């Protein structure tokens, strides 16, 4: 117990790193995933296919392999060598998560009645304007729960970064448990609680959005 409390600052800073990783990767994944989804339903065949290949490749690759690539394979051939850990973590997590965001969103886009996009085209909106003003806002509303799941998975996936020496929550915890075998259970519980709090915040946010948007429809 002592160890956890006396190292409270360290625990906090470790969690702060987790939150940073989750937050930055989450935002980046939402942006990249949205772009990919727009490409997948867009009028340009080359982009449609490229986005499709990206999603298939990424979804069929275990997260651990993605991390091995970004942290070991790519630096071995001379790229990303001076990149800070946090950024490399963000790259790996974003690369991975954006494919899932894309697919969740694509399901949402398909759930928007075709007539919505047609009406938008009929008043002269371009494909981009149609996406940003009519289709995507409705698609997002339809996929809040699955998108929240993707973001929760992302939060938990930040722990994989620990294996690569990134000073984030799970890595910190392993340090503690090694030194204090007695308090192992308590320390595990403390860190699990930390993850639960972050995940609950995401769920609550999603729930709030869902309720607000339900009222607006």
């Amino acid at each position: 117990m002592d160890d956890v409390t006396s190292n409270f600052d360290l625990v906090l800073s470790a969690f702060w790193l987790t939150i940073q990783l989750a937050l930055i990767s989450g935002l980046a994944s939402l942006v990249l995933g949205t772009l990919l989804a727009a490409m997948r339903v867009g009028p340009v065949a080359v982009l449609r296919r490229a986005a499709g290949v990206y999603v298939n490749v990424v979804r069929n690759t275990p997260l651990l392999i993605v991390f091995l690539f970004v942290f070991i394979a790519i630096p071995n051939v001379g790229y990303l060598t001076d990149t800070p850990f946090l950024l490399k973590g963000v790259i790996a997590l974003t690369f991975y998560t954006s494919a899932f965001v894309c697919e969740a969103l694509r399901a949402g886009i398909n759930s928007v009645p075709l007539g919505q996009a047609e009406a938008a085209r009929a008043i002269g909106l371009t494909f981009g304007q149609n996406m940003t003003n009519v289709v995507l806002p409705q698609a997002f509303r339809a996929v809040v729960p699955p998108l929240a799941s993707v973001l929760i998975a992302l939060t938990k996936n930040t722990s994989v970064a620990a294996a690569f020496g990134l000073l984030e929550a799970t890595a910190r915890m392993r340090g503690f448990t090694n030194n204090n075998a007695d308090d192992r259970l308590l320390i595990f519980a403390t860190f699990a609680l930390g993850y639960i709090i972050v995940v609950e915040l995401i769920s609550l946010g999603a729930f709030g959005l869902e309720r607000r948007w339900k009222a607006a429809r």
Partner: protein
Amino acid sequence: MARVRRMTVQQDREINAATGQPLVVLEKVNKHFGALHVLQDIDLSIKRGEVVVVIGPSGSGKSTLCRAINRLETIDDGSITLDGQPLPAEGKALANLRAEVGMVFQSFNLFAHKTILENVTLGPIKVRGVKKADADKRAMELLERVGIAHQAQKYPAQLSGGQQQRVAIARALAMDPKVMLFDEPTSALDPEMIKEVLDVMVELAEQGMTMVVVTHEMGFARTAAHRVVFMADGAIAEENTPHEFFTNPRTARAQDFLGKILKH
């Protein structure tokens, strides 16, 4: 800005009405859905200010014809021109063309996540670059005209079908279109709401709007249309004035069709 545009459109209309150049011209238009030949050598020329009612059995290609005019459906061959210009194939030019052609759908298709007011102002703001305050003002005028101004802050789902369809008409009018296409605008409505939508359309016709209206509402055809186009199996089988068409259909197909809808 919207006002200035509207005046130019009106002047255009007067000038072109004088020269009599047709506004929409379809020549030898063909379209297939797979093996199905939905549009067969369609020739149709629509003058400025003309109201054309398209009528015919279900599946005869009326919607496809309507949608081809603003290129929601592409055609296989033939040509369609608006104001002398061939329809652009894609991109910004196509979007600009569509802004000139108003479309009203059977299922209204109001933007579900936007208020009534936002539904009407989206096009002017995004496509025409009108300032929000100006767009709002003009939208309220249009909503007033179709009798929905007091519901401007509601969402589409909170309105009845007839009200939604009137908003859809206002949304199309907000773009100051050269021509309005209506694809069975009252077919999804309960009987008591049909009239409120038709009244708006009749008023529009009286004000000189060029209109292509797919409908089985004979009352509308008789009061507002200059011409009835009867389609069967993807081709125009017969064209005439409403009076002649309804009292003296020439083709067996039209006689048969009218016999069926008159019985109901």
